[in-house]
């Protein structure tokens, strides 16, 4: 049977037009998905059963024991860190925030090592954005800055940006200009009308120079900025001002090079400036399919989108102090719960070393390097394939993920709820 209009639980594009062929409760074919999405739908190695570490080895156990052990670890910890939440649905995040309140923990998402600096940039400046459909229907100029959708968001260009068609963009790519700014000639750069190769760590200087040119102060600039000829920058600024609707799409190249949130502040400011001349929007190319959703849920529940310390009973937010890496780098966290993420692969080495020294609980359908550091491992159903729920696309659009096939595993939400129940019971015993 062919299931239509399925949402893809891989990247922030959250494509919702996937066709999935199901035969006897198993997925046998997938249409329209990219390589990345396809591999998730078709499945790969799963964690078979719950495990706990005994005498240094992970051994299989019952869900009951795994929940109990997880609850004991969180309850005993003075500074538990609850981290992840990007590759799961919002319903899990809600339960996770409640659990963090209950254990007086710190909750943070993968944004902390991804677009966290973008969020801080937004706190400084605000974000002039739009839905992706607005870009599709109107944009005649697309700027990819430190973003490489050809590799990371393969259907982005065709569905939403450079190669899409819409009401005022019937010619698609032919009617658009594309600018790519990056530190190397990426596959995305090959689709560009103008490619600006910048030295790593010079984004802020280049953006600042562009802002000066846009605002008519270009004559104060030297002949080259960060190794780029002023004439090149003037050409980019002219293209921007000549657009009827420009869209700047920012990636991790901007958020994770020198300057970080200041780079993003600069990009957001450039877009605000350009609105004095023409229409411009800016969007962050969010990575995991629901990392944006965690930020939304956390904001409406706690007031803040990430890095929330609930140890005082009231939310306290101070990234640099309360983000996951901060706690681990200071060796402050004395237990960690990882839900739907893989910090062991993505965190700085020093923080992963800190993880190795504390009890770690993993909740995830799939084994990954974090599994090897974990003391309790709880396998779950795959959201968007085996469980339904809400996810937010990279532009903040909320969509409902569907369940395509049954699973023997509990959902992420159920697992977190079970741990929460046991934490509460332990509290009653004390």
């Amino acid at each position, binding site marked *: 049977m062919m299931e239509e209009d399925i949402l893809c639980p891989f990247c922030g594009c959250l494509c919702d037009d996937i066709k999935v062929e199901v035969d006897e409760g198993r997925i046998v074919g997938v249409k329209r998905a990219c390589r990345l999405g396809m591999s998730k739908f078709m499945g790969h190695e799963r964690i078979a059963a719950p495990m706990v570490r005994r005498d240094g080895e992970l051994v299989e156990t019952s869900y009951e024991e795994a929940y109990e052990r997880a609850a004991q670890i969180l309850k005993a910890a003075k500074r538990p860190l609850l981290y992840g939440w990007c590759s799961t649905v919002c319903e899990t995040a809600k339960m996770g925030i409640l659990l963090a309140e209950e254990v007086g923990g710190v909750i943070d998402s993968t944004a902390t090592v991804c677009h966290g600096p973008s969020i801080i940039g937004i*706190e400084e400046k*605000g974000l002039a954005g739009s839905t992706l*459909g*607005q870009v599709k229907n109107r944009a005649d100029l697309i700027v990819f800055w430190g973003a490489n959708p050809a590799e990371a968001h393969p259907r982005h260009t065709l569905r939403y940006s450079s190669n899409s068609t819409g009401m005022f963009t019937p010619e698609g790519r032919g009617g658009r200009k594309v600018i790519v700014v990056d530190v190397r000639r990426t596959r995305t750069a090959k689709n560009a009308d103008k490619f600006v190769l910048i030295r790593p760590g010079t984004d802020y200087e280049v953006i600042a120079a562009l802002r000066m040119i846009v605002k008519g102060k270009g004559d104060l600039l030297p002949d080259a900025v960060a190794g780029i000829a002023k004439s090149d920058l003037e050409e980019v600024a002219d293209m921007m001002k000549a657009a009827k609707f420009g869209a700047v799409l920012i990636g991790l190249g901007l958020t994770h090079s020198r300057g970080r949130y200041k780079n993003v502040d600069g990009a957001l400011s450039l877009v605000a400036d350009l609105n004095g001349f023409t*229409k411009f929007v800016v969007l962050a190319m969010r990575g995991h399919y629901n990392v944006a959703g965690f930020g939304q849920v956390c904001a409406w529940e706690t007031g803040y989108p990430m890095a929330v310390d609930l140890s005082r009973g009231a939310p306290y937010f101070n990234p640099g102090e309360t983000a996951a890496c901060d706690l681990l780098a200071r060796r402050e966290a004395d237990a960690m719960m990882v839900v739907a993420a893989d910090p062991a692969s993505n965190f700085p080495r020093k923080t992963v070393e800190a993880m190795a020294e504390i009890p770690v609980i993993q909740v995830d359908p799939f084994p990954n390097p974090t599994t090897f550091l974990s003391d309790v491992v709880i396998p779950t159903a795959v959201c968007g394939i085996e469980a339904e729920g*809400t996810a937010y696309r990279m532009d*903040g659009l909320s969509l409902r993920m569907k369940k395509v096939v049954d699973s023997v595993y509990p959902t992420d939400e159920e697992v977190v709820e079970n741990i929460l129940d046991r934490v509460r019971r332990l509290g009653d015993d004390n």
Partner: protein
Amino acid sequence: MIIEGGIVYDPINGVLGEEMDISIEDGRVVEKAGGGEVIDARGMLVMPGGVDAHAHIAGGKVNTGRIMRPEDGRRGTEPRTKLLRPSTGYTVPNCYAIGYRYARLGYTTAFEAATPILEARHTHEELEEIPIIDKGALTLFGNNWEVLECVRDGDLGKLAAFVAWGLRASRGYGVKVVNPGGGEAWGFGGNVKGIDDPVPSFDVTPREIIRYLMRANEALRLPHSVHLHTNNLGKPGNYETTLETLRAVEDIAATRDRQVLHVTHMQFSAYGGTGWRDFESRASDIADYFNKHNQFTMDMGQLIFGSATTMTADAPLEYGNARLLKAKWSNHDIELEESSGVVPLVYGRKNPINAIQWAIGLELALLTEDPWQMIMTTDHPNGGPFVNYPEVVALLMSRRKREEEMATLHDLASKRTSLPSIEREMDWNDVAIVTRAGPARILGLQEKGHLGVGADGDVSIYEINPEKVDPSRDHEVVKAALARAKYTIKAGEVVARDGEVVAVPQGRTYWVDASVPEADAARVRADLVEKFAKYYSIQLSNYMVQDAYVTRPRVVRAGVI
């Protein structure tokens, strides 16, 4: 439950300060309850639970406000308790704080003022998380491509069918129109300058959009009228646009026993002057017009000094605010439907513009003779947060308080408005109308805003004796009493006592299900299939808000068949 001996103000049922008992059973007001809790309300003010007909409390704009304003989050922090989740925020509180703070004020119902269909799922996710109060959301239609095309083609039947479908798709309650045409023009950075300025690419004018949506609204016999945010809102001289808009729809008649048009946060639409230098109040012109045309209603949009977070589907207005104030600016355009913006700002007593704006809201409320035409709001959090409602009521009830306040303001508040000469002081009956009975009637909520048999058991009791306290003189007593309800009762359950939340039930969400002829519905469906194939960035089948997002619905039926 029996509430004994309170001094009851229930304007819908003609009760003006009578000492009487109120009985509630199974969540509703009854003639006589069989038993249950007895609340001694002797010597206290008893009114129906407060109803907020216009506040921005849920959805993308509100959450954008939270995300871009961590400095605001810190201002309202209260830790969790055994019963309550933590609270944060002043102008953009988290969901829990919204429910708790309304309950503490004696409010039991609040409506989110603007939600685009495409992002309604998000709005409902937040509404579901707001505890205690009943709620609903008004759906934005004034810049939707399908609407603009129906208006261009003069196809009222199809427009009505689309409005019915849009309300269902968004699980929305009423038709909100914000800067009609301007949101579409903003798609390329433009705006419309008046009601006859054509909308780019669509060959329609704001006048036509407003008229057609009002006619569709009346054809569908919706419980609420069109809820309009005027063109040119926030600009000096805009009172002329406002009056022109009203004159343009004088011939349209309501098909239900209510207003035919509600103009929202009128304070922002009652400005004179040719620019900021000669900026002045034209509130008296607006109020005069309303005094002669009782088919229209408005709400105040009262300004509160201090921090505010402006948020509106009027995106070009927010861009203007950000440029003028050099403030943080967020913008969010929504494909085929709307645009929106968020800008934080601070209203200053010594700022001449802000001081005049503050006076205009009060002038409007006091110069409009019939309180049923006027709702008390702050357009939360645009004029200021709703927690300041007791301050606004105290101002409406006390000329002395107004004079005390004016003495602290820029003197243009006295020179460029008529407020110093206004003697009127509202009485408790007026207050019960502008905070409860009026908003419930204007929204078309039959079981809200009154305490007759069959009404919802939503009651607020304040520790103030209306027979003994003189609000004109003792305005501080009034403000203090209203800020901490002695009891707030929601569906027959005490949810707040002495200003503290003591129970956290889950409220219901209103939405309107309007029936239309199948032939019109089919024509809408055909249009939608094409729009989703060509223009939307998602599939039609994933668009409509699923039942999972409205777990306790209260569906109001309407329609033409």
